[in-house]
């Protein structure tokens, strides 16, 4: 592997083509430092790729360039002059367009209305419907799609909505176009069309900033690659000089297999048995398609899959958050019949949810109140909460999980992301669960905190907890799991023991049912 963090000679090459520069950008959010002193140059007529793991700061940097967020420190130069971006409208005025990862479209409006939202074509103050519709149709044709411009956006499927989002950006005649994971919802054929559009834009001198997790895709379409890790820039290179293994090493920093070591532990009896867990999807098909599996005491069971494969839906079901799900659950041989979240917690399931900020924390409460929220009943004296016991339980968890906090009465928002996550885990553990459902527990936290979370998982497994570990990070799943189940389109498509699992096998199994071009040759031994 090449060792230097940046390829020599790159800085001097093609400097004259730089159109936009983000200089020494730092961005601090309550709870995390998202970006630390990052500089990023965008070259005209090129695809400037930005990559990094989840939480590395890519999306934050994009939001700053698009005027959605303002940097805490640092400046942005366009054509060598400093510019101030106070709003997306400002960015637009400077010719910067963005295609968001989460679709920023209004489901209640038509395709045309979405494409021209806030930039309506008008004739003497009234919306000029006809020219809008014609231009919309033209754009959609250019993207080789058959979408009726008058259709309600909410009636389109996800991939089509993504196309509309792209059309919306194209309608703006931009000089710089930011694409934040534009292909995540597209089929292989649609990706081909998108790439053709990108090449066309390049030839017209448009600078593209491209973010994606699909490394092969990046090397195919990208010209310049910038790698972020934990909010810092770690490397820059030209796409032609590098390969996928080099990218992975730079992204991860160290070999994660060394960082996250799984401890061998004895597996006990079957703790959890799930049979035919099924949940229909609104509009046909299944979110969960007859999922059955077993979990043993002291086992870390990894769930791998692509976005929307149904892993989060599965753990939500087990936690009782999806009352519409059907299927049989047995815990220690006893059927679990209760359905509400609070009853499931009492019977021994606890969920550490995927999105810490939205589902895990109550931002208005202190560290202690967050920690105890799920287990308040345990600290009662009569009908009153006993402060002493509350404090003792909190202090103990803070110590055991080594949460770095000056005072448990501090607001939870004053903690870093990793420490916030430990509080959420602690909250779960205080309910004395039997099955711990960890949904992307390492998302958006730094490497040090990650390895601490894995440490905790090892300890819990040794204490005979059953741990279900949902993750999109291949390396982490491979390193930590005793057994791995792969899901695709709501069904289990592969099962691998720790010994037999490899990245290729997991990726292949996760692509089952996703079209012929990338459907795996090796199917997992799904049963």
């Amino acid at each position, binding site marked *: 592997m090449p060792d230097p963090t940046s390829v020599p000679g790159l800085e001097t090459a093609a400097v004259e083509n730089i159109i936009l520069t983000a200089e020494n950008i730092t961005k601090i959010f309550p709870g995390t430092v998202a970006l630390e002193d990052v500089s990023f140059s965008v070259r005209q007529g090129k695809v400037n790729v930005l990559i990094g793991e989840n939480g590395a700061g890519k999306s934050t940097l994009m939001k700053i360039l698009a005027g959605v967020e303002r940097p805490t420190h640092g400046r942005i130069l366009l054509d060598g002059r400093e510019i101030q971006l106070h709003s997306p409208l400002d960015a637009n005025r400077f010719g910067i367009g963005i295609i968001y990862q989460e679709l920023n479209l209004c489901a209640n409006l038509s395709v045309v209305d979405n494409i021209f939202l806030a930039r309506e074509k008008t004739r003497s103050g009234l919306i000029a419907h006809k020219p809008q519709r014609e231009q919309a149709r033209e754009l959609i044709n250019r993207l080789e799609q058959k979408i009726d411009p008058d259709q309600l956006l909410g009636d389109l499927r996800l991939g089509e909505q993504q196309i509309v989002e792209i059309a919306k950006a194209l309608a703006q005649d931009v000089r710089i176009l930011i694409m934040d994971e534009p292909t995540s919802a597209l089929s292989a054929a649609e990706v081909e069309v998108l790439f053709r559009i990108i090449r066309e834009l390049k030839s017209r001198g448009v600078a593209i900033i491209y973010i994606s997790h699909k490394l092969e895709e990046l090397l195919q379409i990208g010209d310049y690659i910038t790698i972020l890790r934990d909010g810092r820039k770690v490397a820059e290179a030209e796409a032609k000089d590098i390969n996928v293994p080099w990218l992975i090493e730079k992204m991860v920093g160290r070999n994660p297999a060394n960082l996250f070591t799984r401890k061998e532990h004895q597996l006990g009896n079957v703790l959890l048995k799930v049979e035919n867990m099924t949940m229909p999807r609104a509009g046909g098909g299944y979110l969960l398609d007859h999922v059955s599996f077993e979990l043993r005491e002291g086992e870390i069971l990894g769930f791998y899959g692509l976005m929307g494969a149904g892993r989060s839906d599965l753990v939500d079901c087990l936690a009782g958050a999806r009352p519409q799900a059907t299927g049989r659950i047995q815990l220690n041989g006893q059927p679990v019949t209760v359905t509400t979240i609070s009853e499931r*917690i009492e019977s021994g399931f606890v969920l550490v949810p995927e999105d810490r900020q939205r589902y895990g924390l109550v931002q208005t409460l202190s560290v202690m109140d967050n920690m105890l*929220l799920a287990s308040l009943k345990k600290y009662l004296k009569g009908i009153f909460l006993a402060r002493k016991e509350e404090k003792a339980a909190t202090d103990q968890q803070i110590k055991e999980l080594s949460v770095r906090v000056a005072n448990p009465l501090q607001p939870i928002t004053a903690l870093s992301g990793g420490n916030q996550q430990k509080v959420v885990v602690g909250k779960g553990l205080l309910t004395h669960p039997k099955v711990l459902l960890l949904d992307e527990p390492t998302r958006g936290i730094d490497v040090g905190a990650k390895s601490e979370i894995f440490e905790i998982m090892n300890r819990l497994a040794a204490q005979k907890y059953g741990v279900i570990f949902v993750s999109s990070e291949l390396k982490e799943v491979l390193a930590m799991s005793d057994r791995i189940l792969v899901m695709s389109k709501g069904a289990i498509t592969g099962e691998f023991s720790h010994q037999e699992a490899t990245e290729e096998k997991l990726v292949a199994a996760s692509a089952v049912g996703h079209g012929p071009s990338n459907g795996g040759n090796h199917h997992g031994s799904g049963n």
Partner: protein
Amino acid sequence: MDQETKTNPAPMKKRRNITKTDVQQFLLRGRAFIALILVFVVFTSLTPQFLTTGNIVIMSKHVAINALLAIGMTFVILTGGIDLSVGSIVGMVAMIAGGLINEGINLPQLGIIIYPHTWMIVLLSLALGTLMGAISGFVITRFNVAPFIATLGMLYVARGIAGLRNNGYTFPNLIGRPEYGNTGFEILGAGNFLGVNYSIWLMGILTLVAYIVTTRLPFGRHVYAIGGNERAAELSGVRIARSKIIVYSISGFCSALVGLIIASQLVAAHPATGESFELNAIAAVVLGGTSLAGGRGSMGGTLIGAFVIGVLGDGLVMMGVSSFWQKVIKGAVIVLAVIIDQVQARMQERIALQEQQEMK
């Protein structure tokens, strides 16, 4: 953090000097109390008879009505909801209680009229108010109706029932008759204990109970958690629907209590009793520093807020300020309070960021 502790010893860091931010924070946090003192000082200097025992008792009685409603409202607003129906429930409960005293329960099929004891009437009225609140809570949680709409509906329904009960007429002279055993209703409004009116005692007791509930019971913690992040609370096992129904029931209970107190004080029940009381209650809650978004606030703040509004109103009356100007001033004070609230929130966020920086 390590470096910090190495360079300056720990106690030094704890006992750091009082900074400008600390003073600002203190002033902002105690703003409702400071406002109250300010209002007292201004009115005392402008009107000599303001700070007399007699006047303070009268003002406290006025405050008690609003404070009792505001206590229930605080629970609701802490969950991120709103209850617009409290004023109407006040009127409805007053009419129902008045009707029970003057007309009893008429059962024409059996040819009898039942006159319940006064204490039974009080209990029935309180139960009715609580039930009305519970219905709002049920509609909100079961059918996912926005609290604003559900309680707006209840506002109309309850006011309508208040009018229907006696075709829009007042129930006068609610003293009952000794032969029916339903006398003594007026004691609730007029009675004193240790020289202090019952309504003021009730205000004190309910504030204390509400304070304990919000700070010492799991339910109180749940209320704050729901207002702060409902989904996170739910995933932690908090029973959202149950908690919300209880919260609106508490608000209904407080409204019923106020309805009884007013009917008793006037010894009459009028169907328009309590009109626009909900707005005064909301104003008191907000003035007391409770966030309309939910999750932040306190009962103590609400009590102070109710006093600010009550004292401001009575003081302006005593100064002879026109009722139109009174409204303008009240409105300005409420909006100003919320502006200050926002300033404080932003400041706290900044301080949280600083703390986080220092910890690094």
